[in-house]
Every structure is written in C-alpha cells, then in structure tokens.
C-alpha cells in the first residue's frame, strides 16, 4: 500500500488485523469494503483502491504500481529514478522549441512576421526542464521584487486595519478576569485583537507555447511570491490547470524547479484559457479565493476554447474576488490591441490590464498592488 502512495501506519495495520480476525470476514468480497474504509484517506486512494486490491488478491504477478494523479509520494520516487534520463534530454526541450507551434489555429489575426501570435490546442508531451531558468542572479532579483511587494502590501494593510478596528470586539472573557481585582467593575477593557488576515494573492500563470519566452521570468517571480507572501497560491495552465504552490514553496530553488518540471507535464503546448479558468472556478476557487483575494493572471490571452466560455468564467471569478489583474506581455509591443477573441471577452471583467514581460514591468505594478 505504501508503495502506492497510501499513507498507512502501524495503527492501521493493527486495526486491519483486528477487522480481518473478526468472525465472519473470511472472503475477499467481505474484506474489501472494510479495508477500503480503513486504509483510504482521500479521493485518489478511494478511486485506486479496488484496482490495487484486485491486483494483489488475484494472485497474478501483475504490476502493483498504479499511476495515480496528484500523488506526491509517487512523484518523488519518480524524481530519483528519472533524474538521469531527465538531465540527458533537457537540452532537447528548450523553452521556445518550434515543435510546439504546430497546429496553431490562429485565434488571433494573422501574425506579422517575427511576432508569434495565436493559440494552439496542442499539448506537448515532453517535460519542460525548469532548471534551465535557474540563473542565480535572476532568481535573486525576482525574489527581491516579490519580497518588496509583499512587504508593501502587508504594512499598508496592517496600518489600515488597526485604524478600522480600534475599539471593536471587547474580549469579555479577559475583561472579566481583569475586573475581578477591582471587585467586578470592569475598569480595563481588554480588546480582542483581530486575527490578522492578509490579502491573498492567487497567481494563474499561462505556460503555453506562445508564452514560453516569458515563462522563465514569471516562474521566478511566482517562486519569490510564494516564498515571501504568507498567503499565496499559484497555478500553472496550458491545456490543463495544475496547482503548483506546493512545488514552488520549496526553499531550494533547484529542487523547486525540479518538482515543478515533474508536475507541469505539457508546458509549452497549446492554451485553453477558458477551460483552465472553468477548472479553476469549479475545483479550486471555493478554497483559495475569498473576498480579500487578488487574482493575478499572466497570459497573452490566446485561447483555443470558445471566447464565450472565458468571458463567462471571468465574470464568475470577478464576483468572488477582490481584484483581477491581467498581465499581458504583449501590451509592451508597439501597436498591440487586445484583438484575440478570448482576450476581448475577458477584458470587461478585469480591474487592471497591464504589460508584463520582464521584471521591470512587474516592478512598475508596485504602486497599484500597494493600494489594493
């Protein structure tokens, strides 16, 4: 079980033994649901259990390792095993490889020579090696910027909160305790200190082929953000949406990028912004977005999903969060108009639409973010 990522300990083993030794359970048919309830801890366990159980009890020497998505334990094992293979083909999967440009179906207008516009629905199967972007200076710069931002946002908020909340919320329990000394007259009011709730930053990063020139910059920035903000979540999307906060929370940059590379299979392929947003709204928004959340989307807006879908999902998200900031590297280009249909559909629901193609442009956001 443990080989397959189930988190079971000695207590479970002994309980399993107790259950199995109970009279009446002598056949696998009866043992299965009992062990299932006992040994599963999450949905992925639950869905994989029956296959595993059959594989084991059918007695055949079948492969016991069943691939399950979102399985951290398994992923880490894979890291060690495939590390050498990975390094060997790292050179082939350069961030801006041409292969990924196939099947561009031109969601935007015809791209002028030299500019790469348009979206693709193609999913690359190669893994991008994010370690290639691990230039220590660049990483340090990105972290500095993120730290400065987080500091700005935090100091600002605490000051405002202090003003707004002064005098509210009397802590009666402590007040009464304090009043015993003065014979029950509450001379000193103890105020309940509000639990500090910082603004949360949720970052959705487009890692499709058309964004590949910028992915490196943003990844470094996102890593810095997760390092310095207490409340931040990060997602990566291309044809699918991947939750990458955990991988990027790793302090060690090289390890973080390594883990990211494993999770982010398909990076550099096509973009389905609309579907990624739908997935986000459906499965993650309830958990990571609250009324004090700023959602930051890094994308060029080239989308192969229907534009209405993106529009609807953006409207949905807009109702949930405090601000939506859309950072589009293409704005930096001369004569850029948000003409891609997906971008046009999303535009009405965005609070700030700003350029971002390097760290300087991100730094230019500082005053805006500080006001949030």
């Amino acid at each position, binding site marked *: 079980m443990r080989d397959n990522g189930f*988190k*079971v*300990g000695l*207590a*479970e083993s002994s*309980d399993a033994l*107790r*259950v199995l030794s*109970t009279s*009446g*359970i002598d056949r696998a048919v*009866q043992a299965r*649901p*009992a062990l*299932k*309830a*006992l040994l*599963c*801890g*999450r*949905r992925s*366990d*639950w*869905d994989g259990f029956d296959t595993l159980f059959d594989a084991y009890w059918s007695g055949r020497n079948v492969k016991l390792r069943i691939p399950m998505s979102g399985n951290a334990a398994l992923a880490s094992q894979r890291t060690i095993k495939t590390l050498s293979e990975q390094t060997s083909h790292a050179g082939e999967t350069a961030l801006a490889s041409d292969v990924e440009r196939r099947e561009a179906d031109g969601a935007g207008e015809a791209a002028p020579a030299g500019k790469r516009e348009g979206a693709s629905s193609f999913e690359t199967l190669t893994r991008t090696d994010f370690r290639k972007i691990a230039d220590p200076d660049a990483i340090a710069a990105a972290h500095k910027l993120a730290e400065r931002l987080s500091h700005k946002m935090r100091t600002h908020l605490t000051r405002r909160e202090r003003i707004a909340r002064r005098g509210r919320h009397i802590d*009666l*329990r402590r007040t*009464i305790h304090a*009043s*015993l*000394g003065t*014979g*029950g007259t*509450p001379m000193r009011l103890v105020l309940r200190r509000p*639990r500090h709730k910082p603004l949360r930053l949720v970052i959705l990063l487009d890692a499709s082929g058309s964004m590949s020139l910028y992915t490196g910059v943003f990844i470094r920035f996102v890593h810095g953000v997760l390092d310095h903000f207490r409340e931040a979540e990060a997602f990566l999307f291309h044809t699918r949406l991947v939750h990458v906060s955990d991988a990027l929370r790793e302090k060690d940059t090289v390890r973080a990028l390594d883990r990211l590379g494993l999770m982010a299979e398909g990076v550099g392929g096509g973009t389905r912004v609309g579907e990624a947003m739908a997935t986000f709204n459906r*499965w*993650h928004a*309830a*958990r990571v977005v*609250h009324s004090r959340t700023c959602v930051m989307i890094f994308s060029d807006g080239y989308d192969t999903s229907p534009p209405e879908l993106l529009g609807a999902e953006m409207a949905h998200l807009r109702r949930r969060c405090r601000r939506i900031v859309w950072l589009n590297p293409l704005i930096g280009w001369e004569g850029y108009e948000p003409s891609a249909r997906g971008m046009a559909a999303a535009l009405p629901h965005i609070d700030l639409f700003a350029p971002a193609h390097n760290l300087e442009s991100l730094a230019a956001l500082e005053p805006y973010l500080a006001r949030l």
Partner: protein
Amino acid sequence: MEQRQDIADRLAAIGYIADGELATALVLMEMLQRPLLVEGAAGVGKTEIAKALAALHGTELIRLQCYEGLDRSDALYEWNYQRQLLAIKAREGQDAAATEAHVFSEDYLMERPLLAAIRRPIAPVLLIDEIDRADEEFEAFLLEVLSDFQVSIPELGTIQAMTIPRVVLTSHDTRELSDALRRRCLYHALDFPDVDREARILLTRLPGIDTTLALQIARLMEQIRRQELSKVPGIAETLVWAAALVGLKVTRLEEDRAAVYETLSCVLKTREDRARISREVADRLIGKVA
C-alpha cells in the same frame, strides 16, 4: 459480517438507503471507535449519514457547522459573561476568591457542540460539517479533542469524556485536509446514488409515490446530472421535486410534460442552468427515460 446487512436493513427501515461499502464503514466505526470522514459533492447526502446514524442508535445529533474563523470558544465552550457580571455585582464586598470560584463554576459555563458531545451520558452522534471550511489551526485542535476525548478548561480543570461520541466529519473534496486527520478517520467517498438507489430513496421517503414514477424520476435525475450544470442537483432536490410532482398528481413524466418542465425549478437553481435545460432539452430527456 452479518452486522453489515443488519445495519443496512435497519438504516433502510428509518429511511436511509446505504450501499454495502457505507454499511461496512459504519460497522467499523463501532468496532474501532474511529471517526468517519465522508467526502463528496454537495447534495449527495453526507449530512444525512449522521442524521440516520443518530436515528439508528436513538441518540441525540450534535452538529458543529464549520466556517472560516471558527475558533475554540465557538466550538468548545464559552462563559456566560452577562450572568457572571451580574453575579459579581451581586456579591460586591464579599471575598474576591469565593466570588471568582463561584463565577467560574459549571453554572456559568455554556457548552458548545464539542463539549456537549463528550459530556452526554448517552453517546451522541457528533456531526462536524464541512471541516474543510475551518482553518488549519482549528483542524489541529480538533485532532487533539478527537484523539483524547478530553478537554481542559483552565478555570475548571480537565473534563473527561463520559462517553465516546460517534463522530462523522464531512468535507467537500476541495481543500486538502491534513494527513493526520485523514489517518485518524475511516474514509468514505460518497457519490450521487445510482438510479436504483435513488428510486429506493424516493420510495422510502415518499410512501405515496408510484413505483414507476419514482424510477422515471431517478432516471431523469441521472440524465440531468450528466448535463453541464453549474449546480448539480442533489438528493434533497430530487425529493422536493418528486413531492411536487406527486402533489400535482403527475403519474407518468411523459404524460404531463408541461408540469414536469414547470416544476424543474425544484431542481435547477441558477438562471444559466435553467436556460441550459430548455423545453426541447427537457423533452428529449423525458423521452429518454419514459
């Protein structure tokens, strides 16, 4: 494992249709005295498990609804401050230590769900609803209470559980709960019932309903849940809708399509969903199940 069938039967008798896996989990709950963690989409009947369990054992159901910011004093206990203040006023001039001892006695203690659950002489069912909404600190605190079944109140000392409550935790499959909590619990993933089970639920809950109609409704619900909806209807919606149809004296869905379409608002809860199941779509779906 005769108990399994036994539990399933007894649950059916009080109106809860459980499948074999759930019945087993409930048996194990008794046997190992572990809490049961139930995950699944909204409306699949997670909360109902706790209610059924309480009815089954003829005990009280104590419910703790979790939300962001829930803390110990909301979940465990609180002192009745108003009364304490009055008591202190009334005893003015008396010995301060005696006053303190008096105000921090049982009389002024207001128990909240967790404390209530461990102080009942007959073990109640404790439902901790939507645990994924509570903050992580609270989850950790809960873990402590659930493993020791004792609570320490600084002014009173440690309170030992009189009985170990049966604990059901529900979660929406969304936020990642801690491994520590998961490991301490039995696990059950609840899905929408299949047609057969949903029809049986209708027949048990609405005794007046025609068997064919119940089956038709169950099949139609299965079809509706397959559509792209923003709010997938749960079992409670099915029950309300079925009751509405019975009330309108509909006996076959295909015979009274207008009534079926007009009562769909029992099931579809957003404007977009209503628009998605247009009259034509509804007709097609009814055609499929009739």
